[in-house]
């Protein structure tokens, strides 16, 4: 069995062909958003990149590098402001060492907001390759599981997938799906199967299709419209949904463009 994949060179095989407009600092999120809207790329708001000290400088840089190098990404345009702690050109250098389909822009050197949007749209279009789809064998695919709450079908789902060669990484370090998602992103998973905590709604990660499985909690029952799978979904139904999403079916949170990035921080902002 094989799935529709995209050969993203050194980033690996993706199950989506995203272009990422990555604001390297909170101050660039609006400019990034305008570029992404014009080019059909993905971007997200976050609050990092400046006023960070200590281990957070390296930590956030590595986190952003992992995002930009994710296998579901075909190309990345980094948008910086200029005076921030985390310098866009240094991030770009780290990425360019691996992936040539990376570029960066700095608002303070690009004539302001409109100038950066204009150059950004042009740069993004130049970066965008038409990647050929190809039949990706299951053995090249990687599923992440956010185990914020337990599910009785888990071990059987994992066994079924690993038997056919799908790599599986489970994250249950946090009760917070958002932090588990970030760990799974850094592990390079293609799709996330999320079992959110009973008190948490369905959620997702911008670059990685996220399948939400409900629990029997009152909240999840009330929010049934937002979950891809009901609490008593069978092993077969769960595995079938995973294959279908590998193959291009949009998950519910993916379809509405939801997904906030939650990055670990060690120290308060200065």
């Amino acid at each position, binding site marked *: 069995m094989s799935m529709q994949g995209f050969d993203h060179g050194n980033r690996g095989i993706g199950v989506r062909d995203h272009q990422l407009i990555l604001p390297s600092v*909170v*101050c660039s*999120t*609006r*400019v990034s958003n305008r570029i992404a809207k014009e080019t059909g790329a993905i971007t997200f*708001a*976050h*609050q990092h990149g*400046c*006023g960070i*000290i*200590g281990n957070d400088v390296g930590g956030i840089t590595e986190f952003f590098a992992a995002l930009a190098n994710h296998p579901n990404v075909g190309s990345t345009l980094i948008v910086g*402001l*200029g*005076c*921030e*702690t985390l*310098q866009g050109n240094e991030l770009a250098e780290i990425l360019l060492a691996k992936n040539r389909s990376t570029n960066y822009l700095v*608002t*303070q050197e690009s*004539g*302001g*907001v*409109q*100038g950066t949007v204009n150059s950004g749209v042009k740069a993004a279009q130049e970066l965008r390759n038409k990647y050929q789809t190809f039949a990706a064998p299951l053995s090249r695919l990687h599923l992440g599981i956010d185990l914020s709450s337990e599910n009785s079908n888990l071990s059987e789902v994992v066994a079924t997938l690993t038997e056919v060669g799908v790599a599986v990484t489970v994250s249950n370090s*946090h*009760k*917070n*799906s*958002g*932090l588990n998602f970030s760990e799974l992103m850094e592990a390079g998973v293609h799709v996330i199967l999320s079992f959110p905590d009973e*008190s*948490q*709604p*369905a*959620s997702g990660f911008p670059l990685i299709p996220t399948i939400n499985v409900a629990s029997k909690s*009152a*909240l999840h029952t*009330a*929010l*049934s*419209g*937002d979950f891809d799978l009901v609490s008593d979904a069978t092993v077969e139904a769960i595995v079938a949904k995973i294959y279908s999403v590998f193959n291009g079916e949009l998950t519910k949170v993916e379809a*509405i*463009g*939801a*997904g*906030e*990035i*939650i*990055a*670990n*921080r*060690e*120290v*308060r*902002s*200065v």
Partner: protein
Amino acid sequence: MSEVLKAFERSDGRWGLRNHVLVLPLHSALSATARKIADDSLGAVAVSHDWSGEVDGDFDRIVKTFSGFAANPNNYATLFITIGTPNELGIIELAKTLGLSKFEVLNVAELGSMGKVYEVGLALANSLVKQARLASRVNAPWSAIKLGQECGGSDALSGITANPALGVASDRLVDLGASSVLGETTEILGAEHLLAARAITPEIGSQIIETVARYERSINYEGIDMRGAQPSRGNIEGGLTTLEEKSLGAAKKAGNAMFSGVLEYADQVSSPGLYFMDTPGHDIEQLTGYGAAGINIVVFTTGRGTPTGSAIIPTIKVATNTTMADAIPDLIDLNAGTIADGLNMLADVGSDLFDLILAVANGGETKAEKGLHHEFSLSRMYNTVIR
């Protein structure tokens, strides 16, 4: 120009300089829907954030931030989106005690899906925007103005041009009976003794000193010497050499008025006078805290240039140097670099800035507002690894 202030009077006697309809998601997973409602509406605004209901060391600070932001007098109404947990509903209750009078609550658990929230939310937001447009400004006292001072991307001219010009404008506003707030504890480090000497009582002076000392202790506790991370790389490229130099320039924003008090992050600014608030230097965490404090207009001086703004607070950008103001004009509302160019006197630029603050308070749009820069960041004191 005429010195008449016209603003929106709220039912509790506070004054709004804007009449926004704010769509506020009380859980990170609701942010995308909130953004979509605002984007598709007739003019509502929204913010996004990364809080998913964690109850940790930062819980009280986050609750205070959301409730204050919701209750900011620049909001005509706030449309909350919630999954309905007691902690989220508690934020709404607290906002009511801070003066929030007009609001709607969309409970996702009652509506059943984000799709339904979007549909109902868009209709509600549009109805509120239409109501907001019917409200008119009336003559307001100077105490209606609650000014927040901010600087970001400072350079060697900040302390000579834009910051002292803001000081001139701030002093005049304080004389007239407005409130004015200096923040950024990071950026008064090394200048605290000068500010403390201007406190109206010795106790307030001690509080200023202690707030800075407490801040430095908390950073040292992490095993990091903040003096190695400040001034930032951008500041150094802009010509600043030491944190003390940066601080002495940053403190100029507060002019020469006496300090009437010290406020914790996001404490309500409820009386006229000049205050110091303990905020991070991080531009957006500071701006968000100002919004939560009920501050309704901000002057933001910048040497390197920054486009950022708030969903609900008009943010006036003042350039410290003409080179930058000319290179990136769509970010800058006023160029104070003309002082260093020898073209204008400090007092004249300060007076121009006062006039601009009044014009913006009366409804004139800032560059950040025109560009729809609606940044929002929660300020946290503790690490997120334990969440």
